[in-house]
């Protein structure tokens, strides 16, 4: 009887730990968003936002998860200050009127126990649109301090015109490709 109770308690504990989502705090030193846009159909213009803060919770067994990343658009960095200043103007990132962009998602898809696609909502210039982050790679390991770190590379695409950013079309492409680098430390 005692043994059965203990076994039951063990099963319940393991079961609950498996069902409970694990929370990760995004490591700003390893969390960045890069964007790519085609210039005159010739070469790719790139820029960077980061380091970024945010959180992730996911439960691979239950197939659920949640992520929130906030981006201060004023931190845009292309390596050219003149470009950055132009990008912050009202007809592009509108960083003064809309200082923050967000990606919030509650639809996680898993392949072999790892997030393969995260579908959520991207808010930029006050405009919200569905956005899907697709995983290029994902892995978990323990850091030097023995804490679990999970992370990977994701990509996404959107049309900037859908967010009202039409300046420079069609010479500067409408399709914006995001490359998201993310690593989270288990809480």
């Amino acid at each position, binding site marked *: 009887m005692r043994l059965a109770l203990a076994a039951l308690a063990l099963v319940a504990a393991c079961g609950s730990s498996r069902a409970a989502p694990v929370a990760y705090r995004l490591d700003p*030193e*390893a969390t*960045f968003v*890069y964007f790519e846009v085609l*210039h*005159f*159909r*010739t*070469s*790719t*213009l*790139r820029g*960077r936002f*980061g*380091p970024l803060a945010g959180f992730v919770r996911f439960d691979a067994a239950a197939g659920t998860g949640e992520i929130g990343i906030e981006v201060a658009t004023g931190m845009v*960095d292309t*390596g*050219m200050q*003149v*470009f950055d200043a132009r990008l912050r103007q009202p007809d592009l990132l509108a960083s003064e009127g809309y200082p923050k962009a967000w990606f919030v998602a509650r639809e996680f898809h898993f392949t072999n126990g790892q997030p393969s696609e995260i579908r959520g909502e991207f808010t930029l210039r006050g405009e919200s649109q569905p956005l899907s982050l697709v995983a290029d*790679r*994902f*892995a*978990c*390991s323990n850091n030097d301090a023995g804490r679990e*770190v*999970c*992370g*990977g*590379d994701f990509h996404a695409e959107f049309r900037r015109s859908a967010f009202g950013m039409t300046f420079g079309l069609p*010479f500067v492409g409408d399709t914006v490709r995001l*490359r998201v*680098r*993310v*690593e989270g430390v288990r809480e």
Partner: protein
Amino acid sequence: MPKKKDCLLPLLALLAGAAHAEMATYAIEPTHTQVMFEILHNNTSTLRGRFDKESGSVEFDRAGRQGKADITVDVASLDTGLAAFTKNLLKKNFLDVSLAPTARFVGDKFVFDGDKVSAVEGELTLLGKSVPVKLTAQRFNCYISPLIRREICGGDFETTIRRSDFGMDYKVPEIADEVHLVIQIEAIKQTP
């Protein structure tokens, strides 16, 4: 009235001459030229850094399908987005900027696919060591800039190098040896 065949040879010679004469100099357009590196961090996510200052020129002859590129990268212009980390990468274990302030690519073999450049083969000098590399074009195009009304040619190129080939073997393989280089380049034709 000369016969047709009498005209053919001089005409061919003229065309060949014209093709040769098309070797033109293109100057690097710094606002649309960037070298970025990518390295896998703990087999988990891709760490990126960018070199913001490049200079150089390209000799290019589209009709004659030849060219020569000579690009110098200011190593100290590195920017990873994390100041302390950037500073660390410029130290002796990695880029050793005080010893080797510049990196240089000289590409003297342009490979064509039709009239587009599909690869440039040459030598990359980093940390004073020269290693053969092949830059593969993901895209290549020439266009007339509506702003300056001159021809601009450029594209996206990539290659993968091993940092240990340049003597940068600190913490290989705990820190990945393979470095992916992603290169954006546009260059403006200097002669009309």
